[in-house]
């Protein structure tokens, strides 16, 4: 089994349509839904689909991108940290980067958008705006990107190649990505109800950004049992027997080692993946309550693993875990928690994410 060194989290923060980690957590506890119906192609129209935008941000692309200001606001505590230098590397993770700028250029012809369209152009511009040095590793593996950044950063620390590592993720939605999920018919007029046993699946998409500072020895939380697995079975479907989910969870189960946990699932609102994930989590961690927050925040894509890590930390810190927002009726299995519950009766949380290609990622977050 590949190694996944345990590391500490010195700090985490996130940005969602509901605000920073503290505000988002509080809103989730109240059951607020950030998703709103918006035309899938923005100013170009189309059917109204559930989208959740960062506070004050317009959906249609601008040059420079209008998401820089909220991203800088989220990152104010990072200023002057020496990030992007040899001993303080940055691991940027995303699935979108600035690709919305390419859409804006192709639709409307303004060449100013091109400066942000490729991943490296976008990240180099972002690094300059953030005051980072050039030691930036960029990971792009769709919706498990953030997990990969955490694991690479953990290994870099464990090898003694860094004293601290910053994992930084951002995904701001655009007609490029919404149009794609709409074409796949999983983004539609319906609102997501994660893990609900219903006739039609629906996802929502949301803006999301987050960071985590990883160290070897400092911080209140520890990441253990980081695990990956890639089914390579189908681009948009999982093996029907659920073995891909189980294979990813096995090392996490070993890391948990019988401790009491709650589960933060991927839970986008699709049916088959939700059913398989629910079953695999219940089998690996019998009796553990399962929550998913994408019914409120939407799917924050490559950043979801880090956004939801920050919210899981906030849940443990406050002692309250928000329930599965957007799902009122019965779930696929009785382990689904619709309402909030106390975190104090548990030792930590298993966080899981999935992506195209049958990619799976998970870890165990506990008090250090």
């Amino acid at each position, binding site marked *: 089994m590949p190694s996944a060194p345990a590391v500490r989290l010195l700090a985490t923060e996130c940005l969602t349509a509901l605000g920073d980690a503290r505000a988002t957590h509080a809103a989730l506890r109240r059951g607020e839904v950030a998703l709103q119906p918006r035309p899938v192609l923005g100013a170009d129209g189309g059917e109204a689909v559930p989208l959740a935008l960062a506070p004050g941000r317009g959906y249609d692309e601008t040059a420079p991108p209008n998401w820089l200001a909220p991203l800088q606001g989220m990152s104010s505590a990072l200023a002057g940290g020496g990030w992007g*230098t040899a001993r303080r590397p940055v691991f940027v993770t995303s699935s979108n980067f600035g690709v919305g700028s390419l859409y804006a250029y192709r639709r409307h012809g303004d060449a100013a958008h091109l400066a942000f*369209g490729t991943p*490296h*152009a976008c990240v180099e511009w972002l690094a300059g705006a953030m005051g980072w040095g050039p030691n930036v590793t960029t990971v792009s593996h*769709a919706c498990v990107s953030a997990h*990969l950044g955490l694991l690479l950063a953990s290994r870099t620390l464990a090898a003694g190649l860094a004293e601290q590592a910053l994992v930084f993720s951002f995904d701001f939605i655009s007609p490029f990505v919404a149009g794609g999920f709409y074409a796949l018919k999983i983004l539609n007029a319906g609102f997501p109800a994660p893990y609900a046993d219903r006739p039609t699946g629906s996802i929502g998409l949301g803006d999301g950004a987050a960071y985590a500072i990883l160290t070897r020895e400092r911080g209140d939380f520890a990441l253990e049992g980081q695990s*990956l697995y*890639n089914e*390579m079975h189908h681009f948009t479907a999982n093996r029907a027997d659920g073995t891909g989910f189980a294979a990813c969870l096995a090392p996490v189960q070993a890391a948990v080692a019988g401790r009491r946990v709650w589960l933060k699932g991927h839970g986008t609102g699709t049916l088959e993946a939700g059913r398989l994930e629910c079953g695999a989590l219940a089998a690996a961690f019998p009796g553990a309550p399962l929550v998913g927050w994408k019914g409120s925040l939407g799917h924050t894509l490559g950043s979801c693993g880090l956004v939801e890590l920050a919210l899981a930390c906030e849940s443990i810190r406050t002692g309250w875990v928000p329930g599965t927002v957007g799902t009122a009726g019965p779930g696929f299995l009785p382990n689904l928690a619709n309402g909030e519950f106390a975190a104090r009766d548990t030792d930590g949380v298993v966080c899981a994410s999935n992506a195209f290609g049958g990619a799976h990622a998970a870890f165990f977050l506990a008090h250090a």
Partner: protein
Amino acid sequence: MLERYVQALSAHDVGLEEPAATRDRLKDRFPRGATRRMTQLGLLVGTALEDLGPGTDDAVVYASAYAETRALEGYLDSFPAASPTLFQTSIHPSAVQQALIGRQLPVREFFPLTGRLHLPAHALQAALLSDASRVLVCGGEERGTWLLERNAASDRTFAFALALVPTAAGALARVRLEPVDAAVPAVALTLPMFFDALRTRQALDLVAAPGLRLEVEWR
């Protein structure tokens, strides 16, 4: 210091070859019917990986600055009726997924990286930090059309894969990463530069990322 040995190498430099010609030339390397929807980069990365005989215990690291440029161009041109096929094909690590899904070959660890000036160094770092017994490092680019005219795509098409193992026996080369004084400036080593060094068996010894010296010594 991190160290591994190059057990096998596959490099495909196809220059200006058009995707249809690549598809026709390589179609027999893939399961029947599988190449119809594969991208040029998927065909080339798939062939390079196939040359190394990938296995389910291998870890895979993938590096590409632009990835599936033609699919991305086609997807952008498909609006307002966005193409679902081109959407999923245009997503960054698609080239490797096309190859491994075609073979139904699961792998535990798959690290797709992107970037520019230090991409090869960071890809090799990801590989050398893995404790899989064999790590396949692959990468490549495909030449764009209208995105290339706007300097937002690769101007050449190529792909490579190398197998990295812990043992020196029969190795083609040794790859070493060593921390160095942070004050030593890093120089650019882009993916095309790294590919050309692999293709021509050129030795490398440079600070290829901040604080990280890369040495490739051919046997």
